[in-house]
């Protein structure tokens, strides 16, 4: 198999406009970033559904949701998994926010945010806090294998106030 050149993702920095997107969350429903204008949005890119830990990144955010809601923030999980995987994963982990399928063309939104790992064909673990006007106010690319938790997101949301 030919070796694809490794392209290190270069994550979008705060201050710029968040790239628009529309992605499927169920077979007949899509979610667009612009739907949430007027509210802060947390974008949580993650490598894959079904990581083998119980309180994984998405499960943690579901548990922390009451804190995010204090800022009226919307949380959107994004990975390259397809909608059927997302639906099963979401049900299994009792997630209370949408998971978006960055599936076709694969990883396009992850690439637009500079968080696509071409080596693995997955999104990196990366977080963005977008303000009510659609500007990126905080971004974080997690080191390999480290689940970032929710502390950075909450601090960034606090600073929007």
């Amino acid at each position, binding site marked *: 198999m030919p070796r694809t050149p490794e392209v290190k993702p270069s994550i979008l920095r705060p201050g710029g406009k968040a790239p628009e997107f529309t992605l499927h969350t169920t077979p007949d429903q899509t979610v667009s970033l612009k739907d949430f204008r007027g509210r802060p949005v947390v974008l949580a890119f993650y490598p894959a559904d079904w990581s083998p830990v119980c309180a994984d990144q998405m*499960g943690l955010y579901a548990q922390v949701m009451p804190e995010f809601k204090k800022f009226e923030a919307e949380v959107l999980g994004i990975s390259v998994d397809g909608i059927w995987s997302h639906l099963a994963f979401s049900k299994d982990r009792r997630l209370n926010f949408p998971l978006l399928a960055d599936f076709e063309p694969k990883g396009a939104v992850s690439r637009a945010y500079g968080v696509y790992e071409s080596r693995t064909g997955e999104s990196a673990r990366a977080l963005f806090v977008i303000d009510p006007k659609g500007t990126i106010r905080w971004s974080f690319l997690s080191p390999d294998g480290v689940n970032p938790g929710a502390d950075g997101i909450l601090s960034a949301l606090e600073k929007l106030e």
Partner: protein
Amino acid sequence: MAKTYLPPKLTLPVGERDHAEGAPKAPVVLVEYGDYQCPYCGAAYPVVKRVQKELGSELRFVFRNFPITNAHPFAEWAAETAEAAAAQGEFWPMHDFLFENQRLLGDDAPFARAEAKLGLDVARVEREVAQKAYLPRIEEDFLSGVRSGVNGTPTFFIDGVRYDGPAEFEALVAELRRRPGRSR
């Protein structure tokens, strides 16, 4: 741009409010955020016991609640039970019993028997659990964990710095001996 990665730090310092085992003036403090129903915490439980034995008076161990109730329907009940036992001076025996009997969660009877054996007022424990008497404390633990970078269970902090290594005996002992928080 690539600054060195620094793990998050404990935002609520260890203090009087905490359940702690080991010498009060021990040079190293290990804090665990855990969930009594989480199988990974169950697996870490004997590891921590071994680590405590290995380090003896060198180590102080603190347990804080981080129940993942979305995934674990009995996690909050278990946390309430341990806190109710704490109110009668028996936190650690109940903490240990819960982890040693994790598979029995969901059936109250064996836990009531354990409470009786510890000499606790079982009716009081049951009343307090039913009233969620210790929920504010459990929520305070949980939120302090969220703000400190707890990213799943168990999450450990050594001298107030999140430990991102495996919950294994050798790795934990090595890191505790290195004392990463010392230079702060």
